[in-house]
């Protein structure tokens, strides 16, 4: 079943931000906003849940830390303890000072990379993805609001007009 969406093109971030607020105040759900740069407060205005990337990254970091320590413990103490510079090879604790730098690096390594991978997956960003915004100008200087119409095209268009949209398009999406 095909649906009809209305695109409102704005040319100022503050205007579209206000527009989103007004339209949502009217109880109309704004499906998406495409903008050339992040607009502060837009996520609240659209009622988006805060991102949990940070928490994920923290967990990844912990994984990196423990894997790192495990690796060093296994290689230097468990598998083949060698006498190196007369330094101890008896327990993780005694060797810990020498392990700190790498443990730290691995923490960062895991936290950073796994987080980035998560980000790309959640946003479905990957090389070769052909997705683009409905209006290419949104990466330049235009801001675009997308609302799905349920037979109320007319008032939606009016609404967008009065909230300062420059152009308005209707489109059928299969």
């Amino acid at each position, binding site marked *: 079943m095909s649906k009809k969406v209305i695109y409102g093109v704005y040319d100022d971030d503050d205007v579209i931000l206000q527009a989103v607020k007004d339209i949502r105040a009217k109880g109309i759900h704004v499906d998406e906003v495409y903008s050339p740069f992040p607009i502060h407060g837009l996520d609240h205005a659209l009622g988006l849940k805060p991102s949990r990337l940070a928490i994920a990254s923290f967990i990844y970091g912990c994984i990196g830390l423990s894997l790192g320590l495990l690796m060093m413990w296994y290689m230097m103490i468990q598998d083949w303890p060698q006498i190196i*510079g*007369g330094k101890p090879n008896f327990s993780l604790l005694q060797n810990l000072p020498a392990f700190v730098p790498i443990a730290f690096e691995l923490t960062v390594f895991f936290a950073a990379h796994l987080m980035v991978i998560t980000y790309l997956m959640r946003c479905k960003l990957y090389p070769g993805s052909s997705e683009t915004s409905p209006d290419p100008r949104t990466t330049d200087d235009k801001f675009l609001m997308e609302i799905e119409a349920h037979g109320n095209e007319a008032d939606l268009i009016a609404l967008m007009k009065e909230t300062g949209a420059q152009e308005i398009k209707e489109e059928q999406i299969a």
Partner: protein
Amino acid sequence: MVNVTTNLEKEIIKMATKKTYFQGLGELVNNPELEKFQKDEFAEQLPTEAFLGDDEKLSESSTSRRDFLKFLGFSTAAASLAACEAPIQKVIPFVVKPEETIAGEANWYASSFYDGNDFASLLIKNREGRPIFLKTNDLCDKGGINARVQASVLNLYDSARLHTPLANGEEASWSTIDASIVKGLNAAKEAGKQVVLLSSTIISPSTKAVIKEFASKYNAKHISYDVLSASAMLDANLESYGTRTLPTYHFDKADVVVSFAADFLGDWLDTGHGKDYATKRNPKAATMSRHFQFESNLSMTGANADYRTPVKASEMGLALVNLYNLIATKAGASTVNVATSDYSTQIQKAANDLWKAKGKSLVVAGGNDKNTHLVVNAINDLLSNNDSTIDFTKRSNLKQGIDADVSTLISDMNAGKVGAVIAYNVNPVYNLAQGSEFASALAKVDLSVSFAEKKDETAAVMSFVCPDHNYLESWGDANPYTGINALVQPTINPLFNTRQAQSSLMTWTGLGADFYSYVKNYWNNNILGSTSWNTALHDGVFMTSDSEKTVSYKGSISSAAAALAKLSGDSIDLVLYSKTGIGSGEFANNPWLQELPDPITKNTWDNYLTISPRYAKELGFENENVSNGALNGDVADLTVNGVTLKVPVLIQPGQAYKTLGLAVGYGRNGVGKAGDGIGVNAFVFANNFNTTHSGATLVKVENTVHEFASTQLHHTMMGRDRIVKETTLEAFLNDPTSGNEQMMLATHKGPKAPEKVTLWEEHDRDVHWWNLSIDLNSCTGCGACVIACHSENNVPVVGKQEIRNSRDMHWLRIDRYYSSDMTAESAEEDDVSTIDKFLAMEVASTSETLKVVFQPVMCQHCNHAPCETVCPVAATSHSREGLNHMTYNRCVGTRYCANNCPYKVRRFNWFNYADNEDFDFYLNDDLGKMVLNPDVVVRSRGVMEKCSMCVHMLQKVKLDAKKDGRKLRADEAQTACSIACDTGALTFGDVLNEESKVFTASKDPRAYHLLEELNTQPSVWYQTKVRNVTENNI
């Protein structure tokens, strides 16, 4: 072919094999059957018949060539197995395995070395049929191994050796050559011309016998001369004692030694002196000897002296006579009337000490001047040293040459009186001052034959060259000292189509060519008596109790003294000397020796004119370090009685003012790729074998620079006096720890010894703990250990340019430090600024009291090793036995370990040193590679290497002990360097075994660790150097 042995003999052999102190013969004991064992001893696998027999046999028998292939195969195998990155190479296995050869097991054969200068009774290590290492045979208490002897094994594999006999430069078969030589000899005989056998001193009784028969056949004349001649000394003895022989000297009995330019720790008469000297230098035996040295060049001996006085060469005689007068006065004998020497204070002191030690003192002199030795004899007589420190009952036969005969010979040759000249182990064209004269005179001789192993300077102008075997391929014997008879046995088949000189002579005399049986018979008839040949061969030496009758001194020295007292005014003197490495130049093509740093100058691949700093300044000669540190020096035209040479000038602290030193043995030509054209030939100055000459002139050659290759560029300790700790005998006897006060670090728990300050608990030391103790008192700096390390560990030779780049590969180096006039104290007193202080400290002392110390440094095997910590790939780690291991095939070559080594003992393979045209030494030559030790890999490029404390030797003794199911005996395990060290300066062992020598050494109050404040906890100990001087004098 096995010679029949009687049961009696077998019994004796059994007994012989019970002897346990032959580490090497352990394998032989394991051999179940006696026959096999005999084969070992006879080395019958070597088809002596074939190669000593006449040439048809030789040409039939393919044996020697096939064996050669085998050895070749193994050498290639050794090399390829060794090189980490090397391509796979096929090993040629034994076609027929000789019984006595067990792959991977070494056989040790007793033999002897004598090259006309040094004598040593040796045990020769054979691996898969190849001799690869030598060590002293303890059964012989005289002679001994030095750097040259140690290195002589490499000469066997010298690719420059002749492969076949030469007739007028062309290769020829033995038969044709023999024919023409015999013809020539007969012709000469019929023409009534002289047939002359010109040789070095010959100490082999059976060779003498052969020569006698040869002489009688062609009424030939045997003339012998010594390159480093003792002729004057012999003549002096003839005059003073009525016998033209050399006594043996007992430095181990002399409380006071006074040496006038006698480098007795170096090249003076005998390699055994160092050993004796060292035993007497032990400070614990309260009678540590006191050693005065009066000399012009700074010699190794002088460096070890307690009191050293640089004396202008031409004033040495006066000084000596002054000493005589002082002693004579004390003895109430008549003095001679001469001027007072400038060095009277030092001479006075020497005289007093000598007199105090009357009968237990020793005066010796170098040089080849009869008068000097007459006076020395007189002094020793006044001190009644004969029969105590000077022993004429046990004489030394090492030097018997007569200088005068040589010039007579040359004139005879010119006069056309000589029909044939046979040169045996001599190289007159090179090492006679009249060399060129000799060469031209040779033209007037119809038949000239040389036994040279190579086409050297003399061989090149001889009509026939009959290449001799290397001594490791030869049978023979020697009678170096009264009562000591030694045997020489082959340890490998002849590599080339050569023939032993004796066999040649026998062939020409018509005695067949079997010198082996000749020696054997000679011994059975004249020497052995009831003892069996096998025992003698097994032991290598056969001692008899014979002794010569004592001599009594007679004669006056007035004329001699008068001659000596003559001064040459302030003319420039030249003193020729020979280096411990190159000696008289016979071994000039031995890259180990060329790269062995001179004990004093630390220079390699060169000879040069040594000049005192003061005189150099006056003449405007300079040495400077270029941007990469390498040393450059000015060049001078040196002229001595008519002869001029271009020589580089090296400024040498301790050198006497206005006296120049120049080493002989260089400037060779025809000895091979390593030795040719290195340095200049100083023999051209050695008129009538004199080593000192007055009236030299020195002219600076403008805009020419000579490039030296020196392994040590910085010569003082920079006030870091804890590197080499010193004390005086007095102080030591009061307090054994003097000079070695324990360093304390301030901690929150109060002062603590550095090794007590540690962050973590120690690892267990429960199996073995290999330690090495180095006694700085016994180390004379001779460098035998360096060569031993080279040959045991396949250390590469890198050549002059790389030495200039400070990239020498020595695992074991001997640091030499000079004292400086600037010390922390003196800086304090005349408040010198810190900057100026250190600048001044860099300069070696120019005063007469210059002190020299030697310090062998190898990997210290730190138990808290800085190098191990920093290796990212764990290529260097510590063993439970306290060794610092280097895992070559794990090493990626970051060089971090070398940077972090405070002792700078790690060596990096900057290039591939094996199979590399750019490093065309023994490792780039299939023959040379035969000397490689199969137990040690040849390191590939990009890999770090260093002293392993001969870990492969340690593994070997441990395995042997395990096989016998016993614990290791104390001091059973040794390293190459500790074996090579005759003076006992290096003591190796397991410090956990309380019976071991090294355990005692480590507990010695003199023991200290190098740079202990770093708390690297080394496994190497040093023992404080004790000088026998009075307090005010150190």
